């Protein structure tokens, strides 16, 4: 049931413009989340805020095979998902800064960014809680019957929660068009997944639901693209859900204030050496898709975009006080 996808970069039939788009998207994520710690330290951001640095290949690869009309549901570690689905970094940053121009008018913050127009059904502050919601969304998509799908993200630790079990079981018995993308970054806060469960490969859990489970190198953006793309196509065709486990790593702590050193410098360095962006860049240059200079320029453009997003957020007004009692009922 579980199939290990190894290196599959050899034959890539992806348009160069698409490859460049993906590369740019990964860099946007990196730069966006690269600003968090500083903004937090300076007290511009508050609340639990989680960075996606090191995991960019998962969001970008997985979402590269979706259309604008497809859906995703995200997690507490959601900035990368939002950017990869086309989210506006200005409105994201404004939200983190609690501003009226933010995605949620400043009322949600990092853990609740959503853009329904882009099919982003929201980040979630409750671990695994997005999964049952994704099942409901997938039920709607199945009933709509127009081939759209939803990607449901979760972490590794989330798979030990009852919500994961009930959601995957229901999705499978109803053959819903959902792909569960499990980001196995080896830890939930400080707890290693192997001390929270007696298995190593979480994809095996799919078999409990008669579902296909697949493992993919989550630091290889094209591998993620291919595998998730395949499972998305299957879901669109009525083939039901799949659990895709992406092995990856978060470079920094669990939240902005956490140095994350309980994992050991050595382990962190090993994973930093597997940097999904550097690897993709090298690959793109080697294939002649980009020159080194072009790759660098894109990097700098992305950095500038994020600077502008901060600028935009900083300049934006706070929400009016009367917003406090708006949006409770509709």
């Amino acid at each position, binding site marked *: 049931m579980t199939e290990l996808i190894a290196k599959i970069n050899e034959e890539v039939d992806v348009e160069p413009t698409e490859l460049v788009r993906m590369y740019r998207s990964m860099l946007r994520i990196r730069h966006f989340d690269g600003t968090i710690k500083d903004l937090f330290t300076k007290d511009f951001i508050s609340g639990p805020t989680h960075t996606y640095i090191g995991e960019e290949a998962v969001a970008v690869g997985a979402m590269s095979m979706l259309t604008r009309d497809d*859906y995703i*549901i995200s997690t507490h570690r959601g900035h990368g998902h939002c950017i990869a689905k086309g989210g506006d970094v200005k409105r994201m940053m404004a939200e983190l800064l609690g501003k009226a121009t*933010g*995605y*949620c*008018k*400043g*009322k*949600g913050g990092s853990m*609740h960014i*959503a*853009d*329904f127009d882009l099919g982003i*059904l*929201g980040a*979630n*502050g*409750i671990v695994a*809680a997005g*999964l*049952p*919601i*994704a*099942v*409901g*969304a*997938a*039920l*709607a*998509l199945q*009933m*709509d019957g127009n081939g759209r799908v939803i990607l449901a993200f979760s972490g590794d630790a989330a798979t030990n929660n*009852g*919500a994961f079990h*009930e*959601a995957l*079981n*229901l999705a499978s*018995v*109803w053959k819903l068009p959902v792909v569960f993308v499990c980001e196995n970054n080896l830890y939930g806060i400080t707890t290693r997944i192997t001390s929270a469960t007696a298995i190593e490969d979480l994809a095996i859990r799919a078999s409990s639901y008669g579902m296909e489970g697949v493992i993919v190198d989550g630091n290889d953006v094209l591998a993620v693209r291919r595998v998730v793309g395949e499972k998305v196509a299957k879901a669109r065709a009525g083939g039901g859900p799949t659990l895709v486990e992406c092995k990856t790593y978060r470079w920094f702590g669990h939240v902005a204030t956490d140095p994350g050193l309980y994992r050991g410098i050595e382990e962190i360095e090993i994973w930093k050496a597997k940097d999904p962006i550097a690897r993709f860049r090298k690959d793109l240059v080697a294939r002649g898709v980009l020159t080194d200079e072009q790759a660098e320029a894109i990097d700098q453009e992305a950095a500038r975009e994020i600077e502008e997003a901060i600028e935009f957020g900083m300049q934006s007004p706070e929400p009016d006080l009367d917003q406090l009692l*708006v*949006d*409770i*009922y*509709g």
Partner: protein
Amino acid sequence: MKELTYSKAINEALREEMARDSKVLVLGEEVGVPRGGVFGVTQGLEEEFGKSRVRNTPISEMAIAGAAVGASLLGYRPVAEIMYVDFITLAMDQIVNQAAKVRYMFGGKARPSLVIRTQGGVGRGGAAQHSQSLEIWFATIPGLKVAMPATPADAKGMLKAAIRDDNPVIFIEHKKLYATRGMVPEGDHVVPLGKAEVKRQGTAATIVTYSYMVLEALAAAEQLAARGIDVEVVDLRSVNPIDWERVLSSVKKTGKLIAVYEACKTGGLGAEICSRAAEELFDYLDAPVQRVAGLDTPIPYNRKLERAAIPNADQIVAAVDRVL
């Protein structure tokens, strides 16, 4: 008008709304063929509207509620059934942290148009885990609406309103009401949420109540009427939001308030009613507010004890007598 049981009235609301709007779905344990729910409330729906819109689920209360939330976000109007309100303990995250919060925390973008139907209260021998009245849990959560109709007509009309509502509505039926009968208007009978109704007019005192206890209150009112005492019975119908205007204007008129509810007295909804009246009608109240409520105990199995755990008409009469 035709006479229906409470349970058939709910069934009729579901049928009519499913026929009216293809976005209405029904899901839950046992809701489809063969039984239409363990209380038979959804009987015939799968036969009429098909397997796709009427879905039996596994015993996964969290996923049932979550699926309702998710489907609503994409424009559907799911009506999920949680078999006993006692089992809603397993779905609290989806109801309270998700359904009740999505509109607000996403800045107004989400439309959580879902209904969670469930049933509660003391019936016959359900004991501690099948007899609770937990409405205060939802009454205190902004973003939720909570409907607790007492009559077949209200059950039908409020469920139709709940399905058309763009907010999560917790619709709590009462197991002892299912077999009760009453006249129900035919056609598109919609009873707005958040509106109380005076079920009996009177001037001597105001009884504020809801759900099954409306019947006990009306029985008490009969007893009192035989003695020439005319009490007003206000049926809240919705416990979130509460129709303060109607409640407070009645208390203003009578100067006396008796809150009657089946849930445990301490921390129950009647505390909110009495507290609000005490705050806002200090100059109008000419007797202490009264609460006739369930005892602060788990519900026992033995019938004699079970009966003693919850209020009845005699206790309501006694409370009225205390303030007259």
